[in-house]
């Protein structure tokens, strides 16, 4: 496969994943803003920092109102990390790697973009936001469905999946990082309704509220949530899950190419280091420190993948 094609697949699925995660973040933020107007601006502010878009936002807006944040994250095409821009970027990459995709995957991607163009043509009123977010999530689910249902499990699939999981790992890590203060044991006094809402938000931002209840019951606790999102290998958005998927995709490539890549060594070493720690260790050394380190490692791995498989020359 061409290095450029591998890169196109990788980025196509990074963009799709990021767009879907942004929709989840907005959904979670909107729910808090709706029910606790006193903290609405703070909440929107934290949504923007989780998305890593503080500077770009401040260049365009003064206040963290729901209208500003929603417009910025959903439909501002001058902003490369808005859902619309990322969907266009995903489609553009899909066009570039068209020959690697099945007709179903291409059409689902193309249609996703067409639907979003008309959905996001005008500003979204608060009352239409749930519908808009649902539509966005549905269409990215269709692309994923087409990918799983029609694509050969070969190198093409591996690069697509690695894009997804590198992006997802970063996204979950960012959510933990921005919200880490509510997860710190010192402030986790039980009973405050706002804290419960915050925890609920964290779980909602990764679509894990139900999964969490199934595993840990209905009483959320800070350390358990952190443990769930970092170490639980059954939870498809946890850091450990993403790590193991990247390992297995790199291992498939090593099999197919009959050559072990340097990034597989790196990836496995990272997983190993993570497996040696428990949630107690993490809190003892500092959650923030742990997450920052994870994000840094994740970036290094991403660059290493691009280099080892010659995405850009």
């Amino acid at each position: 496969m061409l290095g450029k094609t591998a890169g196109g697949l990788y980025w196509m699925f990074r963009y799709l994943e990021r767009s879907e995660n942004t929709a989840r973040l907005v959904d979670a933020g909107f729910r808090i803003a709706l029910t606790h107007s006193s903290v609405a601006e703070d909440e929107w502010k934290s949504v923007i920092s989780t998305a890593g878009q503080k500077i770009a936002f401040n260049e365009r807006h003064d206040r963290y109102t729901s209208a500003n944040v929603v417009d910025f994250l959903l439909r501002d095409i001058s902003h490369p990390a808005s859902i619309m821009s990322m969907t266009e970027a995903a489609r553009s990459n899909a066009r570039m790697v068209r020959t690697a995709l099945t007709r179903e995957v291409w059409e689902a991607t193309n249609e996703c973009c067409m639907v979003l163009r008309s959905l996001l043509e005008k500003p979204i009123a608060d009352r239409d936001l749930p519908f808009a977010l649902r539509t966005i999530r549905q269409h990215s689910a269709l692309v994923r469905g087409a990918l799983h249902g029609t694509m050969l499990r070969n190198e093409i699939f591996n690069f697509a999946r690695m894009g997804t999981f590198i992006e997802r790992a970063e996204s979950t890590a960012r959510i933990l990082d921005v919200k880490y203060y509510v997860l710190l044991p010192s402030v986790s006094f039980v009973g405050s309704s706002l804290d419960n809402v915050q925890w609920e938000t964290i779980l909602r931002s990764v679509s894990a509220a139900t999964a969490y209840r199934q595993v840990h019951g209905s009483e959320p606790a800070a350390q358990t949530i952190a443990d769930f999102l970092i170490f639980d290998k059954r939870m498809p958005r946890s850091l450990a899950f993403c790590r193991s998927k990247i390992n297995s995709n790199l291992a498939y490539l090593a099999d197919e190419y009959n050559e072990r890549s340097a990034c597989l060594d790196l990836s496995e070493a990272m997983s190993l280091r993570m497996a040696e720690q428990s949630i107690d260790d993490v809190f003892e050394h500092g959650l923030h420190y742990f997450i920052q380190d994870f994000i840094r490692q994740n970036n290094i791995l991403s660059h290493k993948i691009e280099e080892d498989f010659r995405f850009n020359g």
Partner: protein
Amino acid sequence: MNNDSRFFNEMLGHGSERRAPYAEYGAWLDGEDVQRLHQMSGEAEVFFRRTGITFNVYGEPASTERLIPFDVVPRIISGREWDKLVKGIDQRVRAINAFLHDIYHRQEIIKAGRIPAELIAKNDAYLPQMAGFSPPSNIYTHIVGVDLVRTGQDEFYVLEDNARTPSGVSYMLENRETMLQLFPELFTRIPVKRVQTYPATLHRALSACAPAAARNAPVVAILTPGIHNSAYYEHSFLADQMGVYLVEGQDLRIVDGRVAMRTTRGYTPIDVLYRRIDDDFLDPLTFNPHSLLGVPGIMDIYRAGGITITNAPGTGISDDKAIYSYMPEIVEFYTGQPALLKNVETYRCSEPDSLAYVLDNLSELVVKEVHGSGGYGMLVGPAASTAELAAFEAKLRARPSNYIAQPTLALSTVPILSDAGLAPRHVDLRPYVIVSPSGVEVTPGGLTRVALKEGSLVVNSSQGGGTKDTWVLED
């Protein structure tokens, strides 16, 4: 349907009775509701958009992708009519390849005084780098799209021989796919020859022209200028259908005397490159030094037998509009037979007598730039305003050798589905020809372009033309 008897209507002839090739389709049509046809027309558009069959228009923002309008009424040609055309095309394409070989070697045709020497020597499309070089199997034009127009029952003319990088074949295939989805019942009722064999035939032909350096199954790739090119959809479609690589210049470099592409596992040599960029951009070391689309050094590798480039560089010398007027002589010179397909009478404005005639009769003629394409820079005399005629006259006087002129042909019409029901519109036809060491193959079908505006004779998509599915019947 309102039928203008000055033009041959392919469904109705010059009268009002349906011609035989349209009998079965007409019987089906009689049982159809126009409302349903309009609805199908809308569905065709959705199909094209969802599939992403779009083109970019130069001069518009890169993100603007447009659809070529598709008309749901097929253009139908009988098997007998088609076989006649194929014989003519076969002859013409063989002559073009013989001509190219001659021009880049001994130039017998010039020595024989059949075409003037300066026509070649002074032509930008002639590439001195090709002189003395023979491509594998002496095939220069592996892929040709011969533009034909019809003016009567048995009257076909060649308008242009597209022997460089003819486009539009994806429309032939997607138009058929669309018709199969919209009207499956028609294809059980009417025996239409298949066009879907095209990608496999092309892949076989390209592989058969692999250079001596190729090992095992030849590696074939299509070279595209990239996703912003107007024909990008077609490039990716063909690569997808043939199961070959789609590469850009930046994916390629010379490694160990071969043109190689950057894969996830290092550089792999390419054996056959179907390039969809012009000669000028192919190799910045040999041609346009500013080109970023090509591969520096590819011409050296080509001449050394390290890669086959299709179509060969320098084929433009055979489809140049100045050469066109000599095609009857060229066909006869190399095949020993008179040309089966007619040329349109052509006035070379470089010749003083012709120029005088053209200037006197400008409002009756079609004037084209010798190197133009896509319907840009041409004048359709009968449709032009006085101001346009005057402006063009000035251009002609300033650079006469830049133009040729032809009589305005009474192009045949085929009905389209208009807002007011079926209505005749002018069409042309581009059949797709593949040349391989085992012979010349013409896919039974082609691209029918249709001028959607009433009375218009300009069918180019860049000028508001649409397309139709083209049926060749088993008969």
